[in-house]
């Protein structure tokens, strides 16, 4: 299903993928159009800006999650890594007001990489399934955050203005948060699509046994995948701190659900081997837009979670149908697919 190189012969495959993402784009356009018609303020600068800022944090997380899920693993600890990174970096910045934002961002990434590496080591060398490991570290990282926080809260007026100002700063009118999210998505997307390592991740997800047999360094690649997911979560933690300014030890609790939802709605199959980070990022955008649409359309905010749940079920059902159709087409196809 996923060759090590992406050959032009696999055009049918990329067309399936494109169709999958086209579905999300279509849903997005329809939703935005409907909401904008019933309330034109939905497309005002401030509203669009809020949506983009909200999306950027979720998208960074979803991109990292997509990488792990593509290898037929899962990372449920992302919400806790976000919390740990947000609080740690927040208190460091609080104590060192002169710290450049770049250093803060890198510190977040560093914390995330350490957490992700720990996950990967347990998955690879402990032979513990990723679901169990990351469920465990979801608890453990959160506990560490609570221990270090000890009931404290970092509020916006305790953080240096330069740090908080980063949320409003922009290049050519595009907020930095959005630029970072797009850069992460593009970088990881290119890595997955055009580099050997990326293709190997797909191969591992399609068939872990076969991947090991053809000599793919499964251990190293698992490490890289979890490190990417951890780094994304750590980075998202700093973005969270910048955007909201108020951080307590509970920051990001329950985020893992939205992140997995964004990836799955974006067409990343839970059993690995297929999906793209573009899809995951689009999924994040769709979920965020749904949230704002509900507010604008004056629908009870309580519906949001139910809709997210229904969307997940819809997305996996559609993916299942597509996979069945593809399989049937392959069986009917010529000898080249044998």
């Amino acid at each position, binding site marked *: 299903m996923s060759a090590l190189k992406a050959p032009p012969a696999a055009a049918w495959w990329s067309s399936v993928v494109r169709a999958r993402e086209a579905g999300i784009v279509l849903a997005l356009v329809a939703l935005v159009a409907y909401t904008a018609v019933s309330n034109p303020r939905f497309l005002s600068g401030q509203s669009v800006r809020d949506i983009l800022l909200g999306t950027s944090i979720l998208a960074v997380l979803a991109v990292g999650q997509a990488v792990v899920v593509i290898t037929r693993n*899962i990372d449920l600890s992302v919400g806790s890594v976000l919390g740990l990174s947000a609080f740690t970096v927040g208190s460091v910045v609080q104590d060192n007001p002169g710290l450049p934002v770049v250093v803060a961002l890198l510190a977040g990434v560093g914390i995330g990489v350490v957490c992700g590496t720990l996950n990967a080591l*347990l998955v690879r060398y*402990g*032979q*513990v*399934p990723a*679901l*169990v*490991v990351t*469920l*465990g*570290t*979801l*608890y*453990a*990282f*959160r*506990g*560490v955050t*609570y*221990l270090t926080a000890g*009931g404290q809260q970092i509020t916006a007026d305790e953080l240096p203005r330069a740090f908080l100002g980063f949320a409003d700063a922009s290049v050519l009118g595009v907020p930095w948060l959005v630029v970072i999210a797009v850069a992460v998505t593009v970088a990881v997307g290119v890595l997955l699509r055009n580099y050997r390592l990326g293709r190997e991740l797909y191969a591992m997800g399609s068939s872990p046994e076969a991947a090991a047999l053809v000599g793919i360094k499964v251990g190293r690649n698992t490490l890289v995948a979890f490190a990417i997911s951890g780094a994304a979560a750590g980075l998202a933690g700093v973005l969270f701190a910048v955007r909201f300014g108020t951080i307590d*030890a509970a920051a990001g609790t*329950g985020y893992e*659900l939205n992140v*997995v*939802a964004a990836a*799955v709605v974006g067409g990343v199959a*839970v*059993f690995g081997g297929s999906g793209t980070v573009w899809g995951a990022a689009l999924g994040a955008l769709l979920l965020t837009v749904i949230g704002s649409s509900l507010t604008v359309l004056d629908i*009870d905010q*309580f*519906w*949001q*979670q*139910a*809709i*997210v*749940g*229904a969307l*997940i*079920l819809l997305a*996996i*059902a559609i993916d*299942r149908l597509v996979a069945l159709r593809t399989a049937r087409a392959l069986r009917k196809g010529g000898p080249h697919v044998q």
Partner: protein
Amino acid sequence: MSSDRLRRISWWDVAIIAITLVVLLVAAGAVDNFGSSRNFGFLVLDLLPIALIALPMTFVVITGEIDLSVASTLGLTSAVLGSLWNQGLPMETIVPLCVLLGAVLGAVNGLFVTVFKLPSLAVTIGTLALFRGLAFVVLGDSAVADFPAAFTSWVTGGVGGGPIPNALVLLVVLAAVAGLVLHATPVGRAVFATGANEQAARFSGIRVDKLKFWLFVSSGAVAGLAGVLWTLRYSSARADNGVGLELAVVAAVLLGGVSIFGGKGALPGVLAGVVLLATLQNALRLEDVTNESLNIVTGVLLIVSVLLPNLGRSLRATLRRRRLRAARHT
């Protein structure tokens, strides 16, 4: 092969039960008030929902599936209970309706898994969000609290006003039924067979889909019952009741020696896992460790419970290889 497997199961079971007993004894000796009958009552009520939901979860995980939606089912039944009570229905009608609702929600999971052949992990992450969302749609962020004392005091009270909590009796009865079904009936053997090798189970005439469907239904029904008990215990119906409880249940089940890959596990171990987690939390809380820091204990225990048997197995394998090599040299 199978005797080897049996030995490993009982080894872990014995270990976890022994650890639980040691922790119970240490807590009783070293922690003030842990052994008081008042605290015992709290301990039982704390572990009740986790223990109840862990019973069907054990079956579900042994067949190689998982149900992450249980806590949301609990929340939705709690919300519906509150809403129906507000509309003036009698409690005697509401309680069975809520258990039935749980069963229906479980059937939704079962349908997606067995008819549409979707992975239960993804399906129940979806219904986790869906059911919790519906709970908020039903009750919003309000709470219903004026439940009749006859019902709330039954949940918190003891048998005949004595020191043995009613909840404990209910739990023991249900656990005994679940244990018998899992370890002494054809249904139980079908559960193990399905988890060990689903295709072989199908070929040997086990109706795997039917089995899984009813397991999800019972998982939902028990989660519904747990929702009723939760609501009555705190005398508060809220949409966010039991958020995150699914993680505690899964942690207890895995700690109890059930393999996440299916095919392996035993109910006594799971119950010991539930008691161990609840005891640790209760005792450490009495020692003024905050609830949230306890997360570290839960998380580490969860990982260690799977890591330790794995390390033991690879150690045995290494030793066997070394013995073989030594034998060849002599």
